[in-house]
């Protein structure tokens, strides 16, 4: 085990910051007070991070303020932080070891980070990492759990090796059922279930599933998985194991708490294209794909009397087909112009320019649709754990005369 130091996380905080003003003339606000309640009002800078919205200090759970989503790639220093357990080791990259073991392997391996960097082809892709419970704090009635606003997500360019290439070297046997991934963090109590997640073979062997050592051209930040994390494009962040130290090829489905007892949804409410059949039981199925979604990130006056609306849209990698905006409560929708395409798993920027909005207060709505025929919903789909909130984003703006 390569951890050189292990600490119980208590966030030392360098400074507080004030949320930047959003637009010059048109002020963007969340509808109602749900967002303010959801995200908390305290902004704190963790080591190596800019001021993020604090949900909890220990374990650290901090969300990215909305203004950072005005760039397609989320800066590493502003990328959200999410941990289940408060004992977070600091791992020296030179001492790091990845164990690849299990009954379904021909040749168990131990790899250093240098081996991963030099002995396997490097792959780069842009992908959204989004918590299953992003926007949980916006559900009404409220749902217990971390009360996230819009910022439990980020988009980055990940560089690493294909998990499939590592598994090929270890020789996956035909009796393999799932791959399990263990993170280096742990709970203060010995009896608390270790954070272990598994993937079905198809997703684990997909050429886009990576063991990443770089994020946006730099080593992974300490609080985003340094020195190595799993990148599972299209699937929610629960599978994106940070500080992955052990991969186990299983001959039976993983049965630990974090698979069998958490991150599950009523199957009937959420038709999924990519499923995880070996983990489905009864009415509940594991969260898998990121639901199609969008966010309005700014509104501002452009030419005389005109208002420009900008935002981002994303999904599980099926690809964004269109984004539409409405200024009349959904009676009419206008199609936004899609911007730069950094790949099918990335945020897709979009914009629309209104030529004549009447002065005064109004609500702007945005909804995205993907190439698989899925569209955001008007009301979020209620579920016991508050996952996959993908209702239209609605913001109130003031149009100046």
């Amino acid at each position, binding site marked *: 085990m390569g951890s050189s130091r*292990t600490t119980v996380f208590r966030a030392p905080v360098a400074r507080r910051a004030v949320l930047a003003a959003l637009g010059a003339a048109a002020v963007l606000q969340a509808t109602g007070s749900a967002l303010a309640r959801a995200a908390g009002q305290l902004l704190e800078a963790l080591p190596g991070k800019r001021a993020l919205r604090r949900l909890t200090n220990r374990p650290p759970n901090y969300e990215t303020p909305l203004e950072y989503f005005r760039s397609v790639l989320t800066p590493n220093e502003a990328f959200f932080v999410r941990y289940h357990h408060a004992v977070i080791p600091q791992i020296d990259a030179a001492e790091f070891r990845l164990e690849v073991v299990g009954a379904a392997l021909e040749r168990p391996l131990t790899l250093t980070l240098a081996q991963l960097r030099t002995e396997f082809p490097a792959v780069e892709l842009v992908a959204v990492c989004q918590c299953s419970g992003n926007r949980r704090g916006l559900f009404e009635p409220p749902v217990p759990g971390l009360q996230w606003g819009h910022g439990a997500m980020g988009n980055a360019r990940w560089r690493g090796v294909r998990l499939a290439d590592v598994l090929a070297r270890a020789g996956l046997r035909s009796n393999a059922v799932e791959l399990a991934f263990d993170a280096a*963090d*742990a709970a203060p109590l010995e*009896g608390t279930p270790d954070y272990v997640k598994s993937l079905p073979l198809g997703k684990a062997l997909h050429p886009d599933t990576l063991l990443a050592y770089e994020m946006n051209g730099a080593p992974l930040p300490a609080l985003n998985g340094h020195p190595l994390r799993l990148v599972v494009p299209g699937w929610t962040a629960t599978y994106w194991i940070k500080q992955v130290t052990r991969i186990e090829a299983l001959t039976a489905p993983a049965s630990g708490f974090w698979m069998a007892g958490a991150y599950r949804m009523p199957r009937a409410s959420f038709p999924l294209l990519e499923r995880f059949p070996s983990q489905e039981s009864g009415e509940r199925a594991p969260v898998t794909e990121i639901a199609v979604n969008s966010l309005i990130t700014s509104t501002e006056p452009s030419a005389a009397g005109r208002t420009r609306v900008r935002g981002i849209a994303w999904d599980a990698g099926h690809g964004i087909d269109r984004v539409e905006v409405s200024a009349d409560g959904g009676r009419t929708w206008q199609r936004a112009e899609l911007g730069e395409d950094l790949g099918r798993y990335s945020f897709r920027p979009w914009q629309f320019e209104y030529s004549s909005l009447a002065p005064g207060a109004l609500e702007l709505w945005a909804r995205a649709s993907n190439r698989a025929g899925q569209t955001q919903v008007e009301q979020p789909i209620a579920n016991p754990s508050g996952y996959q909130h993908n209702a239209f984003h609605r913001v109130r703006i003031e149009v100046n005369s």
Partner: protein
Amino acid sequence: MSAHRVAMLTLALVITAATGLLAEVRAASGAASGAEPEARAGEGRELFVARCSSCHSLDYMEMHARFGTRALWEAEVTKMRNAYKAPLNDEEAKAIVEYLARTYGPTSPAASVSR
């Protein structure tokens, strides 16, 4: 890694953190940046702090207070015992639920000063 090994390595640090918590916490208003929220006043507070704050900060309580019904707190304490293996006997669990239901609810006296 196994939780066992880390737990062994960090036992001393856990104790330090839990002890430090009592001395260092400040108001939940957020005025003291970086500080963990202090437990709200009420009968059962000491037991609650001793059993719960060794694993997590009390941000979790403040975050749920606006809809913190007795049923919610019962479910949370049950989850902490069954899933997270919080070492509480039935009597302690009951006392902690009582404290949370009285202290971290939408109509609790302290609700007006929480964020």
